[in-house]
């Protein structure tokens, strides 16, 4: 029982937690302890297992092995409700809230105070909502429609919602990602207040300045393992960066003799009203250009504008010296610029369509005669490119929706290679796919570059960036912050540039 206020006893402790997914070990023997009245920062690259951990803590995933201990008793969270009842609450990166409902309803959705006959007690709900909002210093009328609030205020509502259950553990998953500087300051105040109330806080962030500002303890994850933990006071940013990225570079990348040729693509002073500004870069024949940055740095947005999905407000794109007018993706494709988007589900493959039709979709011009598609040619084209990518499927007329994530990605890449592009943009090409497929994609990327295709690879995975790129551009907050040659580039340099931490060698 919680009879003493000693900070030495954690409210919540994870020990030996392991979680595997097909082909991937997301968490391996992970340890974590959260103490009342303290902020523990969880640090790690994308894919280090932070999100999986949050999902285990909130009852969405069940660990395969290991224990969750609350107040000294081992517990299980078979559902999200069970975690909430144990006093664990999470504020997610993109909290699910409802624009069409009032602030009070959003806060109490699912656990609204009930009056007689089990009906919702509206008066009490509004009072309670007002009390919570007041407690976190948010000046928001609980009757306001959520949709009428700004993003920062919505965030406060999300926090109020998290606190509406009597939480003892508050998980904040990159809470400042979408906030302005002023709102971030307010959030810090709030964190201090929660600490004062004795809540244990798990603070997940990429930003070192934040971590050093508000955290008491830290835990570093790398590739699904806990690699370090301790008091913030006993460490430095340099040490944390090292722990975070200091992997053994055991991931095998194809060796490439990079000898990029002439300039193929030149992007000059590319800008967008809200997403990015002043983007200029060149791409040479046979080059792999890495585009690194934190999630939300604007990398995909630049690529989407280049591909014609969105319109830039300013800037020029030149391909082989010719200025292009790209108004829609079809223009980019016609000019030999293709884009493999990050979100396979929404933007990549068409699940209800057979593999061969997915592959030939942008190449129907070459597989048709007199306006009619010729199936034999379609199959031939699809076979040629899917075989090169080592696609595992029983038949090419199988629907893509039935394939695994890695194989779906191969179909999408095959689709674009079949158009014989000059420039291929790969947005997080190996995100969420299994190790084997990853290696196949990397190998193929190297082979393509060797054959003279120019590649822009957007990636948040440092090993991938370092292992594959000839040159790396780092973006932060919609701006290009630095450009690096592959030689002598270290993970630390990239992390510092991306996170805006100007260490001694930024």
């Amino acid at each position: 029982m919680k009879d003493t206020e000693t900070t030495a006893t954690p409210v919540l402790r994870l020990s030996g937690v392991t979680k595997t997914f097909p082909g991937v070990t997301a968490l391996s023997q992970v340890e974590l302890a959260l103490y009342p009245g303290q902020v523990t920062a969880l640090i790690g690259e994308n894919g280090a297992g932070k999100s999986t951990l949050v999902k285990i803590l909130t009852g969405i995933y069940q660990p395969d092995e290991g224990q969750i201990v609350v107040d000294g008793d081992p517990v299980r969270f078979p559902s999200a409700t069970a975690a909430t009842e144990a006093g664990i609450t999470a504020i997610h990166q993109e909290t699910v809230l409802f624009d069409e409902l009032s602030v009070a309803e959003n806060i109490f959705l699912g656990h609204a105070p009930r009056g007689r006959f089990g009906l919702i007690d509206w008066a009490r709900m509004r009072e309670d909502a007002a009390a919570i909002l007041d407690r976190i210093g948010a000046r928001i009328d609980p009757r306001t429609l959520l949709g009428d609030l700004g993003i920062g205020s919505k965030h406060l509502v999300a926090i109020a919602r998290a606190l509406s259950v009597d939480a003892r553990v508050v998980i904040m998953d990159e809470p400042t990602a979408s906030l302005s500087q002023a709102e971030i300051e307010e959030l810090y105040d709030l964190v201090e207040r929660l600490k004062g109330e004795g809540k244990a806080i798990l603070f997940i962030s990429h930003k070192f300045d934040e971590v050093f500002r508000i955290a008491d303890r830290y835990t570093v994850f790398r590739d699904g393992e806990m690699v370090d933990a301790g008091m913030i006071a006993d460490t430095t940013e340099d040490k944390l960066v090292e722990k975070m990225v200091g992997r053994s570079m055991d991931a095998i990348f194809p060796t490439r003799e990079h000898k990029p040729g002439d300039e193929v693509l030149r992007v000059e002073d590319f800008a967008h009203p809200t997403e990015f500004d002043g983007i200029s870069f060149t791409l040479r024949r046979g080059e792999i250009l890495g585009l690194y940055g934190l999630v939300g740095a604007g990398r995909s947005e630049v690529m989407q504008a280049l591909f014609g999905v969105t319109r830039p407000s300013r800037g020029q794109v030149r391909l082989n010296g010719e200025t292009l007018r790209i108004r829609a993706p079809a223009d980019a494709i016609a000019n030999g610029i293709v884009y493999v988007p990050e979100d396979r589900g929404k933007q990549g493959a068409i699940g209800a369509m057979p593999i061969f039709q997915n592959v030939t979709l942008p190449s129907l011009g070459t597989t048709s005669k007199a306006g009619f598609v010729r199936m034999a040619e379609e199959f031939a084209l699809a076979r040629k490119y899917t075989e090169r990518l080592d696609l595992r499927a029983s038949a090419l007329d199988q629907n893509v929706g039935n394939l695994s994530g890695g194989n779906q990605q191969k179909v999408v890449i095959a689709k674009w290679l079949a158009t014989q592009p000059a420039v291929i943009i790969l947005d997080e090409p190996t995100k969420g796919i299994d190790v084997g497929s990853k290696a196949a994609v990397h190998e193929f990327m190297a082979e393509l570059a060797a054959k003279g295709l120019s590649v822009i690879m957007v990636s948040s995975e440092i090993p991938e960036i370092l292992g594959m790129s000839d040159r790396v551009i780092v973006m932060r907050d919609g701006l290009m912050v630095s450009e690096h040659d592959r030689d002598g580039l270290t993970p630390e340099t990239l992390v510092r540039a991306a996170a805006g931490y100007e260490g001694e060698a930024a």
Partner: protein
Amino acid sequence: MTGFLKSREAILLGALIALILVVEMRFSGFAAPGNLADVFNDTSILIILALGQTLVILTRCIDLSQASNLALTGMVTAMLNASMPGLPVVVLLAIAMGLGLVMGAFNGILVWKLEIPPIVVTLGTLTIYRGIIFVVSGGEWVNSHEMSAAYKAFPRAEFLSLPVMSWICLAVIAAFAIGVNRTALGRAFYAAGGNPGAAVYTGIDVGKTRFWAFVIAGGLAGLCGYLWVSRYAVAYTDVAGGFELDIVAACVVGGIAIMGGSGTVLGAVLGALFLGTIKNALPVAGISPFWQMAISGAAIIIAVAFNTRRETGRVILKSAEAKA
């Protein structure tokens, strides 16, 4: 071909044959070739409309205005024929299709350029097109005796022992079988509905693709306007009232996924034939019209339940995937 035996089209074909055989057992002669040809001829209009609707549904839209479009074009051709009996049927056919295309294009423009949800657009035009019939006809009927003989005879005329109506339907089916499966636009319909986001990234203009689906559906509705009115030899404001739901039902029974991106021409044809056969068989069996409606409705729900069940999830096991 082994794939076909497991497809939902094969199941539907089996159900259709079973239905015909059951009726045949009670009423000998139903399954005779001549009677089946009659059933097909009776169902021709539904088949043509269902094919148009199929394109629209494939793109994740819906067209509820087809029946109103049909009634309006039918009325216009009937009035033209009544006032200018010398006008050749071919010209009337062209006018019917042209008018239908324009109405379809109007739906399509609203969906494409103004991005209004298709169900809202076509609920609106359903009423608008129907209202225009009243305006142009003043609520009057055009009756059989006001129509020219040629006007009424055309769909009935026999060619190689099949009525022209059936031939038109077969031609439309053939055109769809090739157009949908073998052209870039055909593929675009599937892509735009199967995954609009991905279609955009593949260089397909989803809005424009939807526009073309509405245009084709409209043109076919126009064609059917003439066929319907000349076949029944009467035009009035409420012609084919409520028929839009039969069309959608035929598509649903035929396995055209209401969420778009999935379905075949053969499926739509079989779906329409299935409903057409029920409609033809039940009166023969002396079943009351109300039971007919209930049975048609049950067929729709059963078909949907079937389609939903057939969806398979992602294969996670590598070994299973290899075998799948």
